[in-house]
């Protein structure tokens, strides 16, 4: 898929091909050599263990995510990267029989404390899923859903917010004339950008992305990657991806998970050129996984 993304854009015919000709070695906006020592820590996981029933799937994971940067989580299927991502806004609460040990500090607050309101947490830590999940409502109502359930009723404000979120998600020009049409009529790539716009509308500080482009065609994938590059100047982004080239293109920091353990985390350029661990190198060079 990645290789395809870098081949001739002329094969793409669904109108989204315009942006693909300029896929840079690193997505525009992502300065992979950015010095993050000055960034404060947005997420700080400390000694995290996670269980589905009796089955432990995360072992003592400790990871710091600098704010306003992109952190990629990579690793083979079943390595626990998605589970780790979902602990960050407590989406795993929705699955019965799960148990979490250790600390996760978001902006310095331990989110696993009993008095934490997950509704507020998820407003602050938004999430975009692998499969785009537009609600069977109009495009406008999809984006306005988050603010509305939070109590926002001012129509003019909502209209402005919807526009600015759709612009940030690079979708405005394609849908501005049909905001009242069903979101189900959009293409897969447009639906995913709509989901990103919808997440932005709740004004999060952190955005979690669970393989946001894995179900998309190469042109749409490249648009999503460009978008990540733009968003990371204002948001902290944690992205799970199966796609090594994608991780190297979009992220500042890369964390390699294997069998429930965090094997290595470092600057992306370091991980991809000179990893410390043998297993990381084997995975990145495609020797397993």
């Amino acid at each position, binding site marked *: 898929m990645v290789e395809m993304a870098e081949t001739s854009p002329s094969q793409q015919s669904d109108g989204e091909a315009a942006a693909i000709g300029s896929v840079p070695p690193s997505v525009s906006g992502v300065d992979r050599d950015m010095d993050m020592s000055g960034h404060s820590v947005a997420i700080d996981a400390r000694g995290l263990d996670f269980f589905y029933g009796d089955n432990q799937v995360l072992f003592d994971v400790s990871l710091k995510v600098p704010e306003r940067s992109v952190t990629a989580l990579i690793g083979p299927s079943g390595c626990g990267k998605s589970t780790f991502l979902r602990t960050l806004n407590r989406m795993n609460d929705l699955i019965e029989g799960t148990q979490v040990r250790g600390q996760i500090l978001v902006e310095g607050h331990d989110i696993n404390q009993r008095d934490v309101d997950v509704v507020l947490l998820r407003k602050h830590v938004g999430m975009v899923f692998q499969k785009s999940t537009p609600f069977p409502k109009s495009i406008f109502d999809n984006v306005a859903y*988050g603010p509305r359930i939070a109590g926002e009723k001012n129509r003019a404000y909502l209209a402005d917010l919807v526009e600015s979120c759709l612009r940030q998600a690079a979708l405005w020009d394609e849908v501005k004339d049909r905001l009242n049409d069903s979101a189900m009529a959009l293409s897969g790539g447009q639906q995913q950008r709509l989901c990103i716009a919808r997440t932005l509308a709740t004004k999060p500080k952190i955005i979690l992305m669970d393989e946001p482009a894995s179900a998309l065609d190469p042109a749409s994938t490249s648009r999503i990657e460009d978008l990540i590059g733009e968003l990371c100047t204002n948001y902290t982004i944690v992205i799970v991806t199966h796609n090594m080239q994608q991780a190297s293109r979009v992220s500042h920091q890369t964390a390699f998970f294997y069998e429930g353990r965090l094997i290595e985390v470092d600057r992306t350029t370091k991980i991809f050129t000179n990893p410390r661990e043998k297993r990381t190198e084997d995975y990145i060079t495609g020797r397993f996984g």
Partner: protein
Amino acid sequence: MSLSFVSDKSDPVLLRRQLVSRVFAKVCRFCTWGALAVLAILLACVGWNAVGWLDWQFLTSVHSADPEKAGLFAGIWGSFWMIQLTVLFCVPLGIGTAIYLEEYAPRNLLTGLIKINLANLAGVPSIVYGMLGLAVFARMFGMFSKDGGQPTLYEIPGIMQFELPFGRSVLTGSLTMTLLILPVVVIASQEALKAVPSSIRTASYALGASRWQTIRWQVLPAAVPGITTGVILAISRAIGETAPLVMIGSLTTIFYTPGDINSPADLIRHPGKLADVPFSKFTAMPIQIYNWIGQAKRDFSHVAAAGIVTLLFVLLAFNALAVWIRYRASKKIQW
């Protein structure tokens, strides 16, 4: 060896296989058309008997000893009010139960037992619900009736009077019908809720929605067509049910409508009569038909036929409504 697809009449195994196949197809065809033929004959007989009897006079007259003057008026209004109240009780209870079981209830032994037994309850014969309704609603275990089983009159000053126990009233009928169709409504609603993809719920939670907001704004709107279809089919069953009404003793010869409301205009002129409706004695369409069939005068068979045609028409209208709602929903929402 050359390959040939020409039928080989000498191969007994092949012949047998094809014979079995043909016979099975014929059996299935016979099952379908046989059942349809019986139904068609029944409908034709009833329709033939009703010709000349199903007229405006029949629809606007109450029961009479003279078949020429007898009509379904009291039955139509009785069924109408009973169903109104049944919907009023059944819809909130049924949907609420389904939402609790599907969205809130922890998965443990108790809720598992409840779910299994809902299906069993839906299969309980309606006469059993009739007995239950008689004991609980019509007589209230004899708690409120003094000597001789006479009901006691209670009054909320200036608003209404009512009797306990409920006796042979519209209220008893509708509460009994509610018990009867509640399991069906709950099961249909559960199925509709289950059909909503969980990714929609997850996405809603991820945007900071509370559980109730997710149910109110995402799950219920998507489930409403399925729930509505289930409710309408359950209601059409309640309209046709006779046995529970016989059991709770709804009247068969009655010459007035519940609350003495004889037309929509009546209701607008005297809205206060509405308060009397639940406590009125009543009859219902199937009860009235059941009564006419047992009458000695031969012409009452024609009156009964006219009643059956009316009842069938109402039931078909309800089923058509359910089909229409399902069709509209399938066009509107695609996952």
